[in-house]
């Protein structure tokens, strides 16, 4: 860790001149904290951390980096789960922490403009002040940044009814690796001039450009919002209920499930008094007009009852339902109470195959002798099977978990699903990219990457990079 700085001194001097000396971190300890994000097992020491103030500074930094072939890794809150912000090839971590202002909320146009470092919650709060609502709801919303949400096309608990981040991005300001600042889209719902770069950049994981400003579409805040829960013997039963609910014509705003292990972990943290004997929990929610919500709750409850729900609770007051949702968002970190290493996955399958996928995960866990706790967004077929291991030094366990997850991905693809529903590819899923996309499409991805980033400086070793052996060698078992 005490290696020679790999960025030439004159370049460091220029970085200081651009961002101001107090916004550059070079000391070993200062850099070490940026060597990882929320993804376990991935680790890479940056050579410098820079926190620029605006798009102009970022443009100057990127021009410098392109000129000197220095990797640049944009980073919001570092709460992503695909190692998208781990500087595997060293270089500069570009923190967006200082760009944290909501620029405007325009109620008459139902949109907001925010700098990239505003938290998802911060944007939601600003919208709420005008009676408006920003629907995407990733689990880490209290800390995750809107720029990071766009870069990973974050999903969350409201995906089924409201869609995900990409459905709310109207326009972006982006700095290209070569230093140009472009604005894609804008304030209009209808605008078909040129390729849809807004969509291309949404989910580009910081490999094509650095997002500096987001124009987000908003909706009117729903009049009522309610949450309820149903207990089942098994996740498979709960999966059956999900299919029936949607077949009955109800699109709930939230339809989440947790298996027994997840319920135990969440209960330890949140003390909600969850059922102690049930095998699975289905959390459902809807919002809108009071009468509509009441009617959809009746139909959801009937579907759950039909599928043999052990118990159905429809929590009335909002505090209660917020507590439930908060607890659900905390499932992943809460699972670490069961073992200090949790590796989670993000397979997504078409909804009719949900129950089948759950059954396959169980079989895979048994085959590879690993503990897998499963939770996820049942409504949109997005599952988070999570492998819980005793410690990061359990190399044998980690190897078994990796084999199990390779099987999970294959099962998902066989069922017409995908390897990541909402967490992203980053470095974590890169080895599976070709299997999912095919050679032709992967080649196109790489040509797009080169068109944006000819020097290959932006977030190397992630989505769009050439697959080289080096990507895996850089993975460190150190947590």
């Amino acid at each position, binding site marked *: 860790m005490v290696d020679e700085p790999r960025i030439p001194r004159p370049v460091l001097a220029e970085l200081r001149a651009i961002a101001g000396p107090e916004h550059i971190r070079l000391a*070993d*300890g200062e850099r*070490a904290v940026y060597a990882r994000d*929320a993804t376990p097992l991935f680790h890479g020491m940056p050579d410098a951390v820079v926190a620029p103030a605006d798009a102009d500074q970022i443009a100057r930094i990127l021009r410098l980096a392109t000129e000197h072939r220095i990797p640049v890794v944009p980073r919001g809150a570092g709460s992503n789960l695909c190692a998208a912000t781990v500087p595997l090839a060293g270089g500069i971590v570009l923190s967006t*922490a200082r760009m944290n202002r909501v620029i405007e909320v325009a109620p008459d146009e139902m949109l907001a403009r925010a700098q990239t470092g505003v*938290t998802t919650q911060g944007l939601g709060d600003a919208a709420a002040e005008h009676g408006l609502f920003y629907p995407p709801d990733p689990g880490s919303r*209290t800390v995750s940044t809107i720029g990071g949400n766009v870069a990973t096309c974050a999903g969350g608990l409201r995906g089924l009814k409201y869609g995900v981040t990409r459905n709310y991005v109207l326009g972006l300001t982006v700095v290209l690796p070569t230093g140009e600042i472009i604005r894609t889209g804008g304030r209009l719902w209808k605008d078909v001039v040129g390729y849809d770069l807004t969509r291309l950049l949404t989910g580009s994981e910081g490999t094509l450009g650095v997002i500096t400003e987001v124009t987000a579409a908003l909706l009117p805040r729903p009049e009522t919002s309610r949450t309820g829960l149903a207990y089942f013997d098994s996740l498979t039963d709960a999966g059956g209920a999900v299919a029936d609910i949607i077949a009955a014509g109800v699109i709930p705003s939230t339809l989440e499930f947790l298996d027994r292990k997840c319920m135990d972990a*969440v209960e330890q943290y949140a003390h909600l008094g969850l059922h102690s004997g049930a095998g699975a929990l289905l959390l459902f929610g809807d919002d809108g007009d009071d009468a509509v919500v009441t009617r959809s709750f009746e139909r959801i409850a009937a579907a759950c009852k039909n599928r043999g729900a052990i118990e159905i609770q429809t929590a009335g007051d909002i505090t209660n339902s917020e507590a439930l949702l908060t607890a659900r968002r905390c499932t992943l970190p809460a699972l670490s109470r069961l073992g200090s290493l949790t590796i989670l996955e993000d397979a997504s399958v078409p909804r009719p195959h949900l129950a089948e996928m759950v059954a396959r995960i169980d079989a895979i866990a048994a085959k590879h002798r690993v503990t897998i706790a499963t939770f996820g967004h049942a409504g949109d077929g997005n599952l988070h099977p999570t492998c819980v291991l005793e410690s990061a030094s359990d190399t044998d366990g980690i190897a078994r978990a990796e084999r199990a997850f390779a099987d999970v991905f294959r099962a998902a693809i066989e069922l017409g699903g995908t390897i990541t529903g909402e967490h992203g590819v980053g470095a974590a899923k890169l080895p599976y990219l070709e299997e999912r996309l095919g050679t032709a499409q992967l080649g196109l991805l790489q040509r797009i990457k080169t068109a944006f980033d000819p020097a290959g400086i932006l977030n190397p070793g992630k989505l769009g990079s050439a697959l080289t052996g080096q990507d895996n060698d850089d993975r460190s078992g150190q947590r």
Partner: protein
Amino acid sequence: MTGDQAAQNRPIFDTGLLSRCISCGFCLAACPTYALTGDEASSPRGRITLMRALDAGTLPPGDPTLAEQASFCLGCRACEPVCPAGVQYGELLEQWRGYQWTGRRRPPVVRLLIFAAERARAHQIAGRLRGAAHTAAAERPGPALMLGCFERSLFPQVSRSALALAPELAAPTRQGCCGALHAHNGEPERGRQLAEQLGAQLPAQIVSTAGGCAAYLSAVLGRDRVMELSEYLQARVTGQVRIGGRLARVTLQDSCHLRNGMGVWREPRALLAAVAEYVEVPGAGRCCGAAGTYSLVRPRDSRRVLDPKLDAIEAAGVDYVAAVNPGCLRQLRQGLRRRKSAVRAQHIADLLRMAADSRPPS
């Protein structure tokens, strides 16, 4: 390097505590120092990464970032209630400072304070001279009021008010320091020793007017041995706090350890709401920057933490802000005085006594 060897010979951290963190980052939003800087190093997750680097020997013990971050942390433990993984950050910080602040590496002002806190007899005499509460020993066998070390002479009326509100409490002068000061500033073993001594001096239930002391004592002696005053009083309050013919508008500044460590925050609010018009100020649960020795060790940062809080308190148009810990009381009073504010800071015991002494409105 000898420091490295020392690090290898003696484990600095309880490994089980350190491995709990999965770096999800849910703590970032709760951390006051991360809010100031936006820098991962001054977040709970970042500090745990630093602790791990120290533990693993990848950063040398003399690393300047380690020293800076161990000191920059307020130790408010706001990261604990929001941590789904259940990381015991407060415990880890004690262990970290126990290592980081040994010998000459301890800030001089901390050395001075610990030296002063050790002078138990002097505090006892000063407390008597300044008129802190006192009841003869062995007179009342039941629950006892903890008098604290600095609170006795700094705010002697607080213990008198507490005794007026709960006259059954014993308040023997012969009682020492709770050890929180030591534990939070690099001497966890000595802190524990003092807490146990105090537990022996006050063998029944201990009632404290200092949230920080209560939380530390309860961590050492057990939660059932210790109660903070508002928790102890429950609904036992009478009268009203009035100003200019109307009910006073009152808010509360939480004590961090009382809220984050002991889970006590509803109780003082309920008491204040019973005797005044209670106004919740946004951010009341966040640290005021007093943070034990912090306001003396890092006065500039302490004020940066305090200022937005004072803005919010003034904007809320309250008459009083109540504190449940002497350190917070001192910090709020000084801050409000500096800006010549009309808002007054009072200990909750004094406000409740004011209410009890007032004549009920006719």
